[in-house]
C-alpha cells in the first residue's frame, strides 16, 4: 500500500506552489476582485506555459499526458493561491467532458487549445435554482439548434466554448438529456455577467436562441456523461478546497501568533487554540477523503462515485469552516476589505455551490453507499 502522492508528484506540487506564490499573490488576486479585469490573463498564459492546463490531457492532444494525480496536486495549489482564473471550468469540466465523450475531431479542435491557454471552456448545466437533475434541464435541442437559458454558468462571460446540457426527450428518464458543444463566439448566444459571491470567478447567464450546436457524445447519453464529469470535478475541486482550507488555517494561525491582546499572544487563549485545532481536524479529514478520491479517480475505480461524494462533502465543509473561523480569529480586521480573509470566505462559499449544493451531495453519498452495500 502506498496511500500518498509520489515524490515526483510532490515535486510538481512544490513547483506549482512556487510559481503561484510568485505570479498569484493576494495583490494580483485583488486586481480581479476589484473588477478591473474579468480574470488574470497573464497568470492563465503562465499556467499554459508551465504545462499545468494540459497536465491531464494526453500528448496527442497537446497536453503533458501526465494524469489525474498530477492534476490533483496542481488543483490544491490553485485553491491555496485563490487563483482568479477559469481553471476549474476549463480543466475539470470542459476538458474532462471532452475526454470522456468527445469525438476525435472535437478533441483535436478543443483540447490543444485548452492546453495552450487559447481556449476557455465551461459547462452550462444549471437553469436557475436547483441541483443537478435531469428534470431541471429545460433548455431544448432540436435539429441541432438550442433554445433556452442557462444560469449560473461559471466563467460564462469569458468562455470560448461551452458544454451544454439539453433536453432531447420527454420520457421523464435520464435518457432525455443530451450534451452539445457550442462555440460561444458564434451566433444565437447572448451572454450577461452576473454579480456573484466571489468576484474573482465570474458567473454568467447565457441565452441560447436558435443557437447551432454539435452533439457531444451519443444522443440520450448526456446524463450518464455528466454524472461522470461531476464526479471527477468533485474530486478535483476538493483538492482546491483542501488547498484553500490549509491557507485559511495558516492565516488564522499566523495571526494568532502575531496579535497581542490582554498582554499575551491571542493564540495562547484556549478559546482561540481550540478553534484552530478544530479547523486542523476538518482540514485533515478533508485531505484524507480527497486522497481517497484521487486514488479512485486515477485508477477509474468502481469506488469513484462514493469517494467523490465523500471528498466533495468533507472538503466543502472544511473550506467553509476554515474560511469563516479565519475571519473570527482576525476579529474586526478580518471583516475589512483590506484583509485577505474575505477572499477565502467568498471562494469557500461559492465553491460550496458550484457542482450542486452540499445537501445534493449528501443525498448522492447515501445512494451510492447503499448501492455498494447491496452489491
Amino acid at each position: 500500500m502506498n496511500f500518498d502522492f509520489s515524490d515526483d508528484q510532490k515535486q510538481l506540487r512544490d513547483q506549482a506552489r512556487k510559481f503561484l506564490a510568485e505570479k498569484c499573490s493576494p495583490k494580483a488576486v485583488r486586481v480581479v476582485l476589484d473588477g478591473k479585469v474579468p480574470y488574470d490573463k497573464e497568470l492563465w498564459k503562465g499556467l499554459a506555459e508551465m504545462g499545468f492546463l494540459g497536465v491531464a490531457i494526453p500528448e496527442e492532444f497537446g497536453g503533458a499526458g501526465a494524469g489525474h494525480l498530477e492534476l490533483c496536486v496542481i488543483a490544491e495549489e490553485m485553491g491555496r493561491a485563490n487563483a482568479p482564473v477559469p481553471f476549474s471550468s476549463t480543466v475539470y469540466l470542459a476538458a474532462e467532458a471532452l475526454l470522456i465523450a468527445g469525438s476525435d475531431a472535437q478533441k483535436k479542435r478543443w483540447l490543444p487549445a485548452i492546453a495552450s491557454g487559447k481556449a476557455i471552456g465551461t459547462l452550462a448545466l444549471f437553469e436557475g435554482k436547483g441541483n443537478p437533475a435531469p428534470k431541471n434541464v429545460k433548455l431544448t435541442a432540436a435539429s441541432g439548434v438550442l433554445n433556452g437559458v442557462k444560469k449560473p454558468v461559471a466563467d460564462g462571460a469569458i468562455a470560448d466554448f461551452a458544454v451544454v446540457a439539453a433536453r432531447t426527450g420527454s420520457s421523464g428518464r435520464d435518457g432525455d438529456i443530451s450534451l452539445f458543444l457550442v462555440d460561444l463566439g458564434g451566433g444565437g448566444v447572448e451572454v450577461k455577467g452576473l454579480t456573484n459571491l466571489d468576484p474573482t470567478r465570474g458567473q454568467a447567464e447565457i441565452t441560447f436562441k436558435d443557437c447551432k450546436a454539435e452533439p457531444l457524445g451519443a444522443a440520450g447519453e448526456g446524463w450518464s456523461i455528466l454524472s461522470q464529469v461531476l464526479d471527477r470535478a468533485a474530486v478535483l475541486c476538493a483538492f482546491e478546497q483542501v488547498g484553500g482550507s490549509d491557507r485559511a488555517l495558516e492565516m488564522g494561525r499566523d495571526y494568532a501568533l502575531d496579535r497581542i491582546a490582554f498582554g499575551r499572544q491571542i493564540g495562547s487563549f484556549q478559546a482561540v487554540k481550540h478553534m484552530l485545532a478544530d479547523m486542523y481536524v476538518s482540514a485533515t479529514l478533508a485531505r484524507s477523503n480527497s486522497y481517497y478520491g484521487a486514488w479512485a479517480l486515477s485508477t477509474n475505480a468502481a469506488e469513484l462515485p462514493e469517494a467523490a461524494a465523500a471528498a466533495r462533502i468533507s472538503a466543502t465543509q472544511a473550506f467553509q469552516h476554515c474560511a469563516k473561523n479565519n475571519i473570527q480569529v482576525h476579529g474586526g480586521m478580518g471583516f475589512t476589505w483590506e484583509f485577505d480573509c474575505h477572499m477565502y470566505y467568498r471562494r469557500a462559499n461559492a465553491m460550496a455551490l458550484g457542482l450542486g449544493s452540499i445537501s445534493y451531495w449528501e443525498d448522492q453519498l447515501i445512494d451510492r453507499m447503499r448501492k455498494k452495500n447491496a452489491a
Partner: protein
Amino acid sequence: MNFDDTPQEAEFRATARVWIGANAPKQYEEELRKSSLGRTQLKNANILEVAKAWQKKKADAGWACLHWPKDYGGRGASPIERVIWQQEEGPFGKLSGMFIIGHGMCGPTMMAFAREEHKRNYLPPLASGEKVWCQLFSEPAGGSDVAGLRTRAEKDGDDWLINGQKIWTSGAHYSDYGILLTRTDPTVPKHKGLTMFFLDMKSPGVEVRPIKQASGASDFNEVYFTNVRIPDHQRLGEVGDGWNVSLTTLMNERMSIGAGVSTGFPELFEYCAGLMLDDGPAIEDRAVRSKLANWAVKASGRRYTSMRAISALSKGERPGPENSIGKLVAGSMIQDVAAYALDLQGASGVVSSPENAEAAGRFQAMLLRAPGTRVEGGTDEIMRNIIAERVLGLPGDIRVDKDVPFNKIPTKGRG
C-alpha cells in the same frame, strides 16, 4: 498511489489468514462482530478467559505483539505487517481489549527504560497475555494535570516506600503488574519531582477498589498504596525524570487509543438501512440521510487518515501528527451517533435491556459508555491543546505553577 500489497505483504497476509482460519475461536465470531462500545461480552463464556486463551495461542505461534522484538515475546514484524494482521484478525481483535494498556503503553515503557533482565523476564508473559498490566498515573488531584499527582515514593534502604492513591486505573482488578508514577521530591516544581516504577500488583499494601461508572459497569478502579515496598531496580528511568518517562507512555497511549476508538457509524448505517419510521424507511428520509452523510465522511476521513500514517510508517517515515485527530473525532462522534439512534427509536429508545430494547440495546449501551471515551487517554480539551501546540505551533498555556515548588501550589479552589 495504490492499496495493493507488495509480494512480501501478500505472502504475509496469506500466512496470517490461513493461521487465523485454523486457530481463531470461531464460535464467538458472530457475537464479537456484533459487539460495540459499551457492550463487548459473550453470552455463554467469560470474555477474559476467552481473550487470554486466544492471546496465548497467538503467542505460542509467534503472532502476539507483532512489532516487538522476538526476544521479548514479539515477532519483529514491520509496522505494515502489524496492520495487515489487524485487518485479518478482524472481530477477534476485539478480544485484545484487556491487553491494550499492557501492550500499547506499559510494554513500550518497559522496553525503553527497564533493565535488560527485567525486559527478558517480564515482557514475554505480557505479550502472551499470561500476565496483565495496568498503568497507575491518574489521581484524584491529577487527571489532565497528571504532573500534579501526590502519591509519595520515599527511599528506604534499597527500596522505595509508596503511599497514596491512584484512580481511573483500567483493569487494575485483574492486573498482575503495573507501571506507577510517583512523587519523589515535593520541594521542586511539579514536573521535576516525579519518578516511575513498575510493581507487582499483589505486593502487600496494594488495595484495589472497583469504581462503579456512570454506565453502571466497573472497568476502572481506585488503587490505594499503604507502605508498599518497591525495590530500586524496578525504577524506570532516573529519579526525578518520571515526567519524561511518562511522556513515552502517553504518546503510545494516544496512538493506541486513537486507532482503537470506534465511531459507531457502521452500526448506525446498518441500523438505519433496515429501520422503518412512521412515514417510511429511515434510509429514504432526507434528515436521516443528511446526518448519515455527515458522519460517513468523518468516519471515512479518519480511516483514510490512519492509512496515510500507515503508508508513512511502511516507507520508514515517522507518521505525521495527523493521527492525533483520531480519538478527538471518534470520541464525540460515537456519543452523537448513539444519541441519534435513540432519537430514531422514539419513546421506546428509553428501554435499554438487551431483551426488550431496539437493536438489542446496543445504542443505549453505547450512549452510556460514550462520555468516558471523551475523557480517557487525554480529554477532548487536552487533545485540542496538543494539536494546537505541537502541530500548529501555538504557545502553551501560561502556567502559574511552573516555577513553584510542588508543596507550595494551592490545593483548593475556594475557601
